[in-house]
């Protein structure tokens, strides 16, 4: 069983993490647990505990095609700009905190979805690219 977590909020392009999970729910992926979280902050670490394989999906700001997906390693998160956080603890900081405490799942993958320049609404998600990427990780 592999856990996939879409992180987001109800606001504009930050919904991308949730839209990704909605899309994956329709893909009949075997052995997957799909979870949506609303700006979990440090509580993200609760979802790491006991997991060896885990995929985080979040909206990111990179100069690339809006709605496109890309796979990142946890160490690369520092250069990504995630959209929202709680008390300044976004996904990147929660992952850093888990790493510092030795609580990072060994097989942690991060899928970033390009938010594009207009953050007021989510761009069209490249669902087939997302599904291909996720199936590769399973």
């Amino acid at each position, binding site marked *: 069983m592999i856990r996939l977590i879409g992180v987001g909020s109800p606001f504009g392009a930050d919904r991308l993490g949730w839209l990704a999970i909605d899309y994956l729910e329709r893909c009949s992926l075997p052995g997957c647990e799909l979870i949506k979280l609303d700006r979990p902050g*440090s509580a993200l*670490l*609760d979802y790491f505990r006991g997991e060896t394989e885990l995929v985080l999906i979040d909206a990111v700001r990179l100069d690339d095609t809006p709605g496109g997906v890309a796979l990142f390693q946890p160490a690369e998160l520092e250069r990504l700009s995630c959209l929202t956080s*709680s008390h300044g603890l976004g996904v990147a900081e929660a992952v850093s*905190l888990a790493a*510092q*405490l030795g609580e990072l799942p060994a097989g942690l993958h991060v899928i970033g979805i390009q938010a594009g320049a207009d953050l007021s609404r989510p761009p069209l998600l490249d669902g087939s690219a997302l599904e291909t990427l996720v199936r590769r990780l399973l």
Partner: protein
Amino acid sequence: MSDNREIRIKVPVLTRVEGEGALELDLLNGAIENLKLRIFEPPRLFEKFVEGYERDQVIDMVARICGICPVAYQMSAVQAFERLSDFTPGRWVREMRRVMYCGEWLQSHALHIHLLAAPDFLGFESAIAMAADYPDAVRRGLRLQTLGNDLIALFGGRSVHPVGICVGGFYRAPELKAVEAILQRLRAALPEAEALVAWTSALDFPDDEQSFISVALSDPEEYAIDRGNLVSGQGLDTDIRYFESHFKEVQSPHSTAFHSELDGRPYLTGPLARLNLNFHQLPEPVRRAMDGCGIVFPSHNMFHSIVARALELYFALFEAVRLLEHYQAPQRSREEVTPVEGNAFGCTEAPRGILWHRYDVDDRGIVRYARIVPPTSQNQGRIEEDIRLSLEKMGLDREEEEIRLRAEQVIRNYDPCISCATHFLRLKISHR
């Protein structure tokens, strides 16, 4: 160091606070020339959103104002609607709401102590950096925060924006088995919470006594969380319905949050204010946790806020255990409460201080007007006053970095929730 310096400190984005704020501080010839805590997060306009909705819808809507203290918003709202209908919840509902509120205090205080405030006292720029040298302390904070979140979810279905509270009670009562499971965890955490009080008390605190007014709820029967009169250290003691007679909100051009004053003066609300007024009502074992700590409440040193939060965290655990120990699921978790037309007032103690609500409701229970006064906007004037006094006491001839760090630490002592506070802006559209 010469005093003939001109220093302009701008902290464009305050870190380790909820929401977006900034600090502007100009020093000229050894004196503070300009000091503004800027709150510029877009106004939330929630008071307009809720107009036209019925009571139970509003209770779920106001939970969305804040991801850290949604329970407080729900509790102030439900109290307002029930008081208007002259409905007093039964013992089970009252006690379980208090337990749920304890969950919010627990998670919010654990977060603030360990991840937001402690790095200031221990000399780290963030909790992540602190975790390298203090991993056990950070883990303790995360554990306690999770426990608080789980306690909220027990009643609310989820910890962020819970949905369990309704006029007349709860939509459903937790099952005994679930209560027993969390009760075991709450009991197990008590020694850790007690030790946390001593841990925070041993931090290095600046000597920074200041004169300020403490404001909190106070109830003759218990340490006030979800009911009580509005009281102050200067003798105010009034029903919450008279809030608007004593507390005035004023707009400030540099902030999208109101400044609030009590009889023309800034005041403090929050854990330290509560302990300053109600410490004697804590259960004896909780009060005893302060023995030998070297800090005495009432305290007028805002840096002691971290200790106040630790003591309230211990109390929240203690209280939740007490109230859940003999838990029995009720036959019904809610009563029907007939709507009444009129002005509804509610006020409870959010983790950061008093959260006052007013709703004007019609005879169908539809909200026609709302006014919400969150703790951070109440504290904003006090924060600015505190920064000024604290920096002057520390000495304005210090290095710029030291001045900036002290000012930021003073702000974080209040655990400001800027997202909650930005709600007031009036929209004015001119048509030509």
